[in-house]
């Protein structure tokens, strides 16, 4: 058994606990501990990516229990790539926050570490109830992170966010209860095995459990009727927190992939999945359309970015609901790109807002801006990447999605939704950029010059954002190896029997008589 595998959970847990106990540490030490922990996470995530490339499934049996009885962690390519994305994103968020945002309230770094523990655990676990527990860990940390810094807007958004997620947790438990009552197990591989051999009479209850799970993951991922908490919450959070939250909707997406394609997908017919996909497809398309409209109507860059998160969720879920191996690989590539770029925009909104005289990141306020050239060019490059124009990763990912979706039925709906929402993003971003950076401001030219002298550009913050954009660029540059890796990952996802065999080994489920 390889103990390195549990490190992505243990490192943030220990760091977070240590930071909580040592809350009297000065902020510099807290920062270096937090940065050190996230750096270690990056190292382990790189190891995980290499390890998953060598062996398809790496198992970690907690307490060395035989899998269906104990909790098991499973590392495959999809998990590894999500771990790496989380680790890199959190590293940049911590670096950005260490320039001052972490002083708005206490315990920022401890909370962030607990959040990372929850996210990494949700990616690694091979047990449905354990998934629930890690969801709660990441949610509890995110409640506190969202409220970090205080203020009226955060209290209001936080209340909505907490209440809808508590209701979601109740539904999650109901779904788990139904599944356990029917199958007598909560291990994902064992569940897959039992569900594939379930008698006809159990089918309606299995369907209702899978639909409940769709609602739960839909709340996390911000699917259409459940997304109205997102714009307010994400735009109220402080910039590094919002950037870290860019991965949270993707945790919901990951859980959908894992649960519906592996747990419910072992049987070739997979009748429960057909119902779920039939609901997901229109809901995801309308989510996409609504996100596009929201992007056009947003009044500030943070709200605009929150709606771009919704657009990305719409694209991911629409491609997922087509249930195609190639398309899933393409949408995973889009996931990497969109997570990175929405995080960049949350940070950019804060960065530019700091150098505007007034109005922060609101579009309606005309305000002089210092460092127009530097910030303007960073914004331009980021916008080109976000709007999926060449030569950045957005272009590669969307082109790949369009190409692989073309042989499928109903592909025109997907094409129309993706292209029109892309056009709306281009329009909204060019309006925002031209309003901020091109508007003539003769009357305030001297004032802007004075501010330029008093407020020097924060190089660390700008560099963090630039490196993140560079990662998006390199994702396009090294697209081929990434695509190969993702195709191998989805091949595993679409062969759930391999997962079941790897986890269960020679254990054979004794049959349903035991549970009756």
């Amino acid at each position, binding site marked *: 058994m390889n103990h390195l595998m549990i490190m992505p959970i243990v490192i943030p847990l220990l760091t977070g606990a240590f930071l909580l106990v040592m809350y009297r540490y000065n902020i510099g030490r807290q920062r270096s501990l937090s940065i050190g922990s996230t750096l270690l996470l990056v190292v382990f995530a790189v190891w995980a990516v290499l390890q998953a490339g060598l062996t398809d499934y790496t198992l970690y049996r907690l307490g060395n229990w035989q899998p269906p009885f104990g909790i098991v962690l499973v590392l495959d390519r999809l998990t590894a790539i999500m771990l790496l994305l989380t680790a890199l994103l959190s590293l940049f968020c911590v670096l950005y926050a260490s320039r001052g945002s972490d002083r708005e309230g206490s315990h920022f770094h401890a909370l962030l570490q607990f959040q990372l523990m929850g996210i990494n655990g949700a990616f690694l676990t091979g047990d449905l109830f354990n998934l629930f527990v890690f969801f*709660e860990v990441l949610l509890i940390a995110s*409640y506190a992170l969202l409220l970090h810094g205080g203020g009226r807007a955060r209290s*209001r958004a*936080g*209340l909505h966010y*907490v209440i809808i997620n508590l209701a979601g*947790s109740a539904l999650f*438990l*109901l779904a788990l209860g139904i599944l356990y009552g029917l199958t007598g197990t909560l291990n994902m591989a064992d569940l897959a095995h039992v569900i594939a051999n379930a008698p006809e009479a159990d089918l309606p209850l299995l369907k209702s459990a899978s639909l409940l799970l769709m609602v739960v993951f839909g709340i996390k991922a911000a699917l259409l009727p459940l997304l109205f908490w997102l714009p307010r919450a994400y735009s109220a959070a402080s910039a590094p927190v919002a950037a870290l939250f860019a991965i949270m909707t993707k945790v919901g997406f990951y859980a959908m992939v894992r649960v519906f394609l592996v747990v419910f997908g072992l049987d070739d017919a997979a009748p429960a999945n057909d119902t779920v996909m039939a609901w997901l497809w229109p809901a995801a398309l309308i989510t996409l359309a609504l996100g596009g409209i929201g992007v056009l109507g947003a009044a500030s860059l943070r709200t605009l970015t929150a709606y771009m998160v919704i657009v990305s969720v719409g694209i991911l879920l629409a491609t997922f609901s087509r249930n195609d191996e190639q398309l899933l690989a393409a949408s995973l590539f889009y996931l990497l790109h969109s997570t990175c770029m929405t995080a960049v925009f949350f940070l950019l909104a804060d960065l530019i807002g700091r150098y505007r005289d007034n109005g922060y990141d609101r579009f309606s306020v005309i305000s002089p801006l210092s460092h127009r050239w530097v910030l303007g060019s960073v914004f331009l490059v980021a916008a080109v990447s976000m709007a999926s124009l060449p030569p950045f990763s957005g272009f590669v990912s969307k082109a790949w999605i369009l190409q692989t979706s073309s042989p499928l039925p109903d592909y025109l709906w997907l094409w129309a939704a993706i292209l029109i929402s892309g056009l709306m993003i281009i329009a909204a971003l060019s309006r925002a950029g031209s309003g901020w950076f091109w508007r003539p401001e003769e009357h305030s030219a001297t004032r802007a010059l004075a501010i330029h002298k008093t407020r020097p550009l924060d190089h660390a913050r700008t560099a963090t954002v630039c490196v993140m954009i560079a990662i998006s660029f390199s994702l396009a540059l090294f697209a081929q190896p990434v695509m190969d890796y993702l195709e191998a990952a989805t091949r595993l996802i679409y062969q759930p029997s391999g997962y079941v065999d790897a986890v269960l080994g020679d254990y054979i489920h004794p049959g349903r008589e035991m549970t009756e």
Partner: protein
Amino acid sequence: MELVVAITLGMLTSTGVYLILRARTFSVVLGLTLLSHGVNLFLFSMGRLTTASPAVIGLVENYTDPLPQALVLTAIVISFSMTAFVVVLALKAAVELRSDHVDGEDPNEDRQ
């Protein structure tokens, strides 16, 4: 016994859902509590409803499944702590926004 449990579950869930949909934070918190009680009871009953069969091997012929009880314990701890958190958050929001409406403002009060 099944009927009693089913009626209790139905009452807890329906009153919980009704209260969650109310406009004031206090009733929403009560609704969340009732809903989580309902969910806990449901999880517990997933180990099948039997009498005189403890979750210990060797005492009786038909021992009951101990796993739902472990799941319920976890769920109770989480829902209890989250209720405490949401009470504090609702208080904080009520003080800061000067309103206990879930949206932070009463849409009818503005028009007066």
